[in-house]
């Protein structure tokens, strides 16, 4: 591959260069004159994962006297791949693939002007991915490199970068700095093809963006993948040839000021009421496996269950009440009553049926003869094992969160010096697993919010063993630094939540209430990836366009807070620690 410089131009502050990738000729660079230019980010107009496309439009004067130095030939070139690079001093401002057929030539007062439209190139991804074949589990950073390499992105972009993003705990010991998308991957089946159908590269990339909660856009000649729920990511990782890790940039921050020179209209964007992410692959039986984790569980958010009409929940657990017996405690019978509540949406399982009345699914009493004359406080454990407890078939009310509470009360004997109730948990489907899993974040206390729904083919699928063979649409983490072996059943936070559980809740949190929405004009060109602070409020840009001297931008106030369930829904809030 080789790039050749075709033509250059200068404006007051910026330099333009038009290049050809692998042209079938030897170029003899010439200069031309720019009449006007602008760059427009036409974003999603809300904070959600996906591509944020941008377009560069520039108008130049045509030299009619010399056909060899005539930009017009680019518009009709059959084989050429042209791109434009705009720089300001040594800073890159924009790189864009020229789309020939969007150009036009206009005669104004005897002078011909030619207009070019260049873009970030994302539109080229609408092409079947059947030309890309790999075996085994491939890291996401390599997949991203390979996919964009089919479209010569790396002739144009300098590198790509992924902001702070989740990493499964299984991969941390291999080198957390390389990032979660370097240490995780998937097989090709499920993401790239389903049965006999190959999907488009665009659909594949959209799924990766949803699964990791990323936006993808160009920022100053870099392809940027940015997590949607950080106001300011702590770090950016850079990846190079074939997705190799280059380095981590931590804590970079440079500030600038610009005058606001037009008045703004203050509007408000709606809060997000519900987020649905559908993982469009058959679920395994396991909803959550914490077989070794003894935790205190009060309204403990387990995950979401999807009813099939016949499936039920299967609950396995080991309960432990650890009591402190004070010195001088006389021999006597001590009894604890331990209860478990299993909640599915607004329903409680009462041992025989699902009901909206608060009920216990299981209640047991454990007693022991206890005595302490050792001279020191002693510890006494009251334990109970729940084996294959089955509920009735789940009510057919769509995907709902499951909560478990395990609580104990002392029901006989003199008072002990306090006790702590903990339990392990394995929650599974019984009598049928759903064909897709819907993850749900509930902020319904904002009754007038909007609902977001996404679909992806890639997500966590719990298997019976962590070394099980990869299956279609499953997220895998690598188990060695060579990335030749991979494991399943990933833990994305201390509470072992699934990645899409976390992503759906984080997306809800970033619009948990209405946000200020401004359109303003600033007195200098400003690149997309920034934060704007005005009157001590932080804003992130949604749509942005700039030219030689000014920027017009729509800002959304940055908000981040807990999502709250409508009290009338009769279920607890989904409170999870931030990613």
């Amino acid at each position: 591959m080789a790039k050749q410089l075709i033509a250059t131009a200068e404006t007051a502050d910026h330099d333009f260069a038009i290049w050809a990738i692998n042209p079938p000729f030897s170029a003899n660079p010439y200069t031309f004159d720019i009449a006007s230019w602008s760059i427009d980010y036409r974003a999603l107009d809300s904070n959600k994962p996906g591509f944020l496309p941008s377009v560069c439009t520039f108008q130049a004067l045509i030299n009619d006297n010399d056909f060899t130095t005539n930009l017009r030939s680019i518009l009709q070139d059959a084989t050429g791949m042209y791109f434009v690079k705009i720089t300001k001093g040594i800073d890159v401002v924009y790189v864009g693939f020229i789309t020939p057929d969007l150009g036009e030539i206009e005669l104004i007062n005897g002078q011909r002007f030619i207009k070019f439209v260049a873009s970030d190139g994302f539109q080229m991804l609408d092409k079947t991915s059947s030309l890309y074949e790999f075996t085994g589990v491939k890291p996401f950073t390599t997949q991203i490199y390979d996919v964009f390499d089919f479209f010569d992105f790396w002739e144009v972009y300098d590198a790509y970068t992924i902001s702070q993003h989740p990493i499964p705990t299984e991969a941390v010991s291999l080198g957390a700095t390389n990032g979660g998308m370097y240490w995780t991957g998937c097989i090709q089946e499920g993401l790239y093809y389903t049965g006999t159908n190959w999907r488009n590269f665009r659909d594949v990339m959209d799924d990766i963006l949803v699964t990791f909660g990323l936006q993808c856009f160009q920022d100053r000649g870099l392809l940027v993948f940015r997590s949607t729920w950080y106001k300011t990511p702590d770090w950016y990782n850079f990846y190079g040839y074939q997705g190799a890790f280059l380095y981590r940039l931590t804590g970079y921050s440079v500030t600038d000021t610009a005058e606001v020179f037009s008045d703004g209209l203050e509007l408000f964007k709606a809060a997000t009421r519900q987020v649905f992410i559908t993982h469009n692959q058959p679920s395994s039986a396991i909803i959550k496996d914490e077989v070794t984790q003894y935790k205190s569980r009060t309204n403990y958010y387990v995950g979401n269950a999807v009813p099939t009409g016949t499936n039920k929940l299967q609950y396995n657990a080991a309960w432990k009440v650890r009591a402190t017996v004070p010195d001088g405690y006389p021999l006597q019978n001590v009894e604890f009553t331990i209860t478990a509540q299993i909640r599915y949406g607004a329903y409680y399982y009462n041992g025989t049926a699902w009901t909206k009345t608060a009920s216990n699914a299981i209640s047991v009493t454990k007693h022991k003869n206890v005595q302490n004359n050792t001279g020191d406080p002693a510890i006494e454990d009251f334990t109970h094992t729940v084996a294959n407890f089955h509920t009735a078939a789940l009510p057919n009310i769509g995907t709902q969160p499951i909560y478990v509470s395990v609580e104990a009360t002392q029901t006989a004997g003199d008072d002990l010096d306090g006790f702590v109730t903990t339990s392990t948990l394995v929650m599974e489907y019984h009598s049928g697993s759903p064909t897709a899993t819907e993850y749900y974040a509930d902020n319904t206390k904002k009754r007038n919010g909007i609902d977001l729904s996404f679909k992806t083919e890639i997500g966590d699928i719990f298997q019976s063993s962590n070394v099980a063979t990869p299956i279609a649409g499953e997220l895998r983490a690598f188990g060695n630094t060579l990335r030749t072996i991979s494991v399943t059943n990933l833990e994305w936070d201390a509470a072992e939540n699934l990645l899409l559980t976390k992503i759906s809740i984080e997306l809800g949190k970033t619009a948990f209430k209405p946000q200020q929405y401004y359109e303003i004009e600033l007195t200098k060109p400003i690149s997309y990836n920034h934060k704007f602070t005005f009157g001590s409020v932080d804003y992130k840009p949604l749509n942005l366009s700039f030219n030689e001297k000014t920027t017009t931008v729509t800002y959304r106030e940055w908000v981040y807070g807990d999502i709250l369930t409508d009290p009338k829904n009769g279920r607890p809030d989904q409170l999870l620690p931030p990613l």
Partner: protein
Amino acid sequence: MITYELPANPLYYAYVLNDGGTVEINNCTRL
């Protein structure tokens, strides 16, 4: 006030990467 999260030009990255040594701007291209 405007706060940028990423440096304005790839020379900065090359500098960080190579600690002032050889400047390789396009990190993704096989040479």
